[in-house]
């Protein structure tokens, strides 16, 4: 076969696997992204799954998706639109058609496009393509029946056989992108190591899917993504943001020489951090699945008092419940890391979708003057760094730190180079120095305002702390008006001092542009890509993206005031913009806000920026 003629070189490709939530689309997508990463491509993935665990089969509400973005150079997002859509049934086709372009290739399982399936997906005619007004290239593959044929001698029951059809689809996609199957086979062997028959069946169907593509669709061009040479050498693994957060916390505990303690209550989309940390008993990590959100943070506060690196993980509704206890850590001046994996709100809202709507809650959602540190992670792999530095600041500055991630980066994954921990800074708890006499628990470092830490079990430093205001000098309970003023100012100064310990705000893109895009947290990939594409089209634009929100980097005003136009882009109705206006009165800025529960769209951002430049 004239393969050479039929291979098209690509720099980037986005593949979206979609099917019923029981169809195994997440696994197929995950294997495809790993196979590509092993080949040296950069990857970014995003699962898009329904809130229901198993909605009725074949219906719109049961559709689950997994999008994989692969690039020969660095990729920053899981991509707006897909180049290939795998739709395992009509409902998947209908729900995901919005993620395609007229050029996208669509792979369908023709066995699931019967009249009944079409009705379940609420199609009114027997031609779904005409009904959806699409004329894309469609690879028709009888996936279910080929899967059955492939496994007819396997001895497996019908249900188990049909479960393997995701591998047939994966085989087809691997063929389409010239991915060797070696690593995929290895992953399946490992995943089903305890069920060798299932492993064998999956491997056979995967291989048959690949061969089916090769043999029957020779006229369809296939694609090649060259291995990237820009990636740093080293050992890599696939991590999602929640895993990276868990690893960042473990790394920080190691660097601080402290035990890691997690008190948590399951909540979407944060629960995977609890799952991950619960696995690491060998590293001495202690996790308590508490009776409720409040007990999650309360056990962490108890562990912090005991001298641990103490953490609680949650999402928006849980953060509401934890507010009072977080305030206890504020006034008791104990280190505490609160990870809030943001989701759509208010109330239960959109549990499986992503938003940035907890910012003001994190900053101000407590009674009294209650300053604490707020940090936001920018990408799945950045969650590692963010969790590490959140822990470092909490322990070294004796303060609660809220780390904001979101559903998109928490569930999205990317190839991550396993870091050399020795290259990370040490974490030094501010213990009471040996030999200190007449020590009181609220004695503090005169410069940093950080109080000294004495941990129960240490002789001679028995002390009492608590939620009541304390005297600046004696540390006894005090209601003295001037003392409360002083303690309030001291707690504020302690947090403000941290701005001298964090990196300055950097500008990327075209620094000389007149338009500055401002963002924070998990929208980084989309803003970066939109800004880059504008600059490539000679539409100059700069980007300032914030990791550190309270305190802000000390050069923030200096950077922002250089630009004629500022647009603050957020997945909320303007919370960070409002925060900047409050901090820097007089600074003019416009806003770009979306709360659709979906990642920002690069094209939409680009159009908006270009419009702003032309105004």
């Amino acid at each position, binding site marked *: 076969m004239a393969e050479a003629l039929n291979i098209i070189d690509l720099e980037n490709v986005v593949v979206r696997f979609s099917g019923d939530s029981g169809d195994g689309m997440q696994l197929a997508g995950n294997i495809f992204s790993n196979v590509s990463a092993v080949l*040296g491509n950069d990857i970014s993935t995003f699962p898009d799954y329904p809130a229901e665990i198993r909605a009725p089969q074949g219906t719109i509400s049961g559709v689950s998706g997994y999008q994989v973005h692969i690039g020969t150079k660095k990729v920053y997002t899981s991509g707006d639109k897909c180049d290939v859509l795998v739709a395992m049934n009509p409902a998947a086709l209908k729900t995901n058609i919005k993620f395609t372009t007229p050029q996208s290739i669509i792979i369908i399982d023709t066995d699931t496009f019967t009249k009944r399936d079409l009705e379940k997906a609420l199609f009114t005619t027997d031609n779904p393509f005409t009904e959806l007004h699409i004329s894309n290239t469609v690879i028709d593959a009888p996936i279910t029946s080929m899967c059955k044929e492939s496994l007819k001698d396997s001895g497996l029951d019908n249900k188990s056989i049909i479960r393997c059809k995701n591998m047939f689809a994966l085989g087809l996609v691997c063929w389409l992108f010239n991915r060797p199957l070696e690593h995929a086979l290895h992953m399946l062997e490992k995943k089903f190591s305890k069920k060798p028959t299932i492993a064998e069946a999956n491997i056979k169907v995967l291989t048959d899917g690949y061969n089916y593509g090769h043999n029957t669709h020779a006229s369809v061009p296939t694609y090649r993504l060259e291995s990237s040479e820009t990636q740093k050498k080293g*050992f890599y693994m696939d991590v999602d943001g929640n895993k990276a957060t868990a690893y960042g916390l473990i790394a920080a505990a190691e660097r601080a020489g402290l035990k890691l303690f997690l008190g948590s209550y399951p909540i979407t989309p944060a629960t995977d951090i609890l799952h991950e940390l619960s696995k690491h008993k060998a590293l001495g990590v202690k996790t308590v699945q508490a009776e409720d959100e409040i007990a999650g943070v309360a056990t962490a506060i108890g562990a912090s*008092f005991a001298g641990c690196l103490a953490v609680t993980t949650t999402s928006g509704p849980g953060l509401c419940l934890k507010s009072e206890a977080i305030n206890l850590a504020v006034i008791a001046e104990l280190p505490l890391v609160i990870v809030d994996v943001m989701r759509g709100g208010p109330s239960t809202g959109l549990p499986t979708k992503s938003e940035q709507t907890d910012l003001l809650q994190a900053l101000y959602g407590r009674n009294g003057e209650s300053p604490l540190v707020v940090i936001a992670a920018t990408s799945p792999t950045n969650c590692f760094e963010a969790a590490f530095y959140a822990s470092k600041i909490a322990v070294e500055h004796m303060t609660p730190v809220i780390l904001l991630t979101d559903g998109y980066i928490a569930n999205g994954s990317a190839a991550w180079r*396993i870091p050399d921990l020795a290259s990370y800074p040490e974490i030094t708890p501010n213990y009471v120095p040996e030999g200190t006499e007449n020590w009181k628990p609220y004695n503090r470092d005169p410069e940093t305002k950080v109080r000294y830490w004495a941990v129960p079990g240490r002789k001679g430093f028995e002390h009492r*702390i608590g939620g009541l205001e304390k005297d600046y000098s004696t540390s006894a309970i005090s209601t003295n008006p001037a003392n409360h003023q002083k303690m309030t100012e001291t707690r504020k100064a302690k947090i403000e001092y941290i701005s001298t310990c964090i990196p300055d705000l950097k500008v990327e893109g075209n620094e000389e542009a007149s338009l500055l895009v401002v963002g924070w947290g998990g929208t980084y990939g989309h803003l970066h890509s939109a800004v880059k594409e504008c600059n490539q089209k000679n539409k100059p634009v700069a980007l300032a993206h914030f990791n550190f929100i309270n305190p802000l980097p000390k050069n923030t005003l200096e950077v922002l005031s250089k630009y004629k136009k500022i647009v603050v882009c957020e997945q909320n109705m303007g919370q960070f913009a409002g925060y900047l206006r409050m901090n820097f009165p007089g600074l003019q800025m416009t806003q770009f806000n979306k709360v659709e529960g979906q990642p920002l769209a690069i094209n939409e951002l680009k159009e908006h920026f270009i419009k702003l430049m032309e105004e």
Partner: protein
Amino acid sequence: MSELQYKPQDFKSDQYVRWCPGCGDHAFLNYLHKAMSELGIAPHETAVISGIGCSSRLPYYMNTYGFHTIHGRAAAIATGLKVANPKLSVWQISGDGDGLAIGGNHFIHAIRRNIDLNMILLNNEIYGLTKGQYSPTSPRGFVSKSSPYGTVEDPFRPAELAFGARGRFFARTIDVDGPTTVSVLTAAAKHKGASVVEVLQNCVIFNNGVHSILATKEGRAEYAIQLKQGEPMLFGLNNEKGLMQDGFGLKVVKLGENGITEKDILIHDAHTTDNTLHLKLALMQGPDFPVALGVIRDVEAPSYDESVEAQICEVQKNKKVRTLTEQLMAGEIWELK
């Protein structure tokens, strides 16, 4: 734990005690100092955690590690502390509002998990710090500032709640009874697992005399029974009354009447696993029955904190990784050369 001998004042802080004169907390505090000195655990290895309420001020009067936390959460904070450092002797001080109303969920779950905490419930059947509202232990019909026509709800009986949560240790005392208080506090501390001690306590301002019938020696002899392991359940000024089983229930009998001798009287066994009789004893109340004081139930079971440590040891025996890097390198990785 230290073998050193301590005096009660070793556990006393330099803070001026601010409870109302005549408040039951004063007496309790002194007995707690005494009990701690008898246990021989050093002040720096002891931590006292409280929530909010009059009694929750107690940690400030201790020369141990102490944490006055937020309303209702003492049990959860104490849980984190104990799991983080099982070597500490951890005491949780709560009132009936803090422990059973706002903190009810943490109370039952700490007991269910069997965390090795000494959970003290100072029960005066009233909210004192907010100035006189009924509490979850106030009797039906109780008139208070927030129930001027009497409450229309039934109270919790703390023992029932503790046993419902599979409590393994439950003791009861009254604030003014020094010997019983000291003995149940030391027994609670020695018990491995969640130990609940209900202290019947007077609020001199808002619920004065709530337990007055038991406030004197004579009253306790007549209307309470001091339960002692392995001893017959006798009470009365001259130990002339006793408890016998009566079908599925209990009955009060008089020795010598109807041919009843000491041999017919129930022998107390706090260590029996079955909690049926313990619950019956714990729920006894006047006028027909004496109120049970002393250690009612004391059954060994694995504590949560101990089990956490054991599980870590077990996993470490089988898995050799000790650092994050080792852990990651042993996982699903690939190399870019």
